[in-house]
């Protein structure tokens, strides 16, 4: 039955109305056959067929109404999803721009500070001598916890 959801609305509607119309027509026609002698033997059969088609048509009409309601809901949701996807893309672009700018600023600041160190390098080094233990401690602190390298 799910395959019916692939059938275009207009075709589905035409089929449902067609079945109903055929059923009602056949049912009405069964009353006329009384006055048409060659068709008199088929009157009962035509009436039964008309009744069945009418009943099936009404059943399908109920199904069709529900189907249309679902399709409208799906279309509504798809529109909302499309809007949200666009919003999501826009938000990503904005976030991407901001993060790039921030990282660029951090990198630039780092370069400036490194230059500053170079300028006062002689002064710093003349005033202080670093003990090898201090470097070891610093490296120990910089090592990723739990990973031996």
């Amino acid at each position, binding site marked *: 039955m*799910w395959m019916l959801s692939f059938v275009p609305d207009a075709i589905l509607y035409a089929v449902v109305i067609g079945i109903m119309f055929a059923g009602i027509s056949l049912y009405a026609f069964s009353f006329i056959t009384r006055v048409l002698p060659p068709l008199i033997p088929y009157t009962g059969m035509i009436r039964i067929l008309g009744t069945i088609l009418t009943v099936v048509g009404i059943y399908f009409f109920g*199904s069709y109404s529900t189907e249309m309601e679902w399709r409208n809901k799906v279309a509504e949701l798809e529109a909302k999803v499309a809007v949200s996807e666009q919003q999501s893309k826009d938000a*990503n672009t904005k976030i991407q721009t901001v993060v790039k700018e921030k*990282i660029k600023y951090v990198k630039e600041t780092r370069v400036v500070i490194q230059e500053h160190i170079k300028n006062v390098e002689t002064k710093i080094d003349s005033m202080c001598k670093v003990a090898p233990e201090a470097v070891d401690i610093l490296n120990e602190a910089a090592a990723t916890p739990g990973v031996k390298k």
Partner: protein
Amino acid sequence: MKKLLIALTVLMITGCAMFSPTPVKRTFPAVPSELMEACPDLKKTEPTEKLSEVLKVVVDNYGQYHECKIKVDTWVEWYKTQKDIFESVK
């Protein structure tokens, strides 16, 4: 006639269960590539007596921390933004 109408209505309603709804596909938003880069390990100082050399490594590591902080903060912001957008569709 009344009974016939009731029967027809019941029949029509029974037919309502015939179709199944089509699911609406939603795609997971892509994460900006900048956020997918892993934070590198902290730099280590080469054995030296010069404080300036040590200072350079420390400054590099501080910079690295700031970059990682930006990424983590952005991840949190990204998640909150995308969650709000996702939940707005009902």
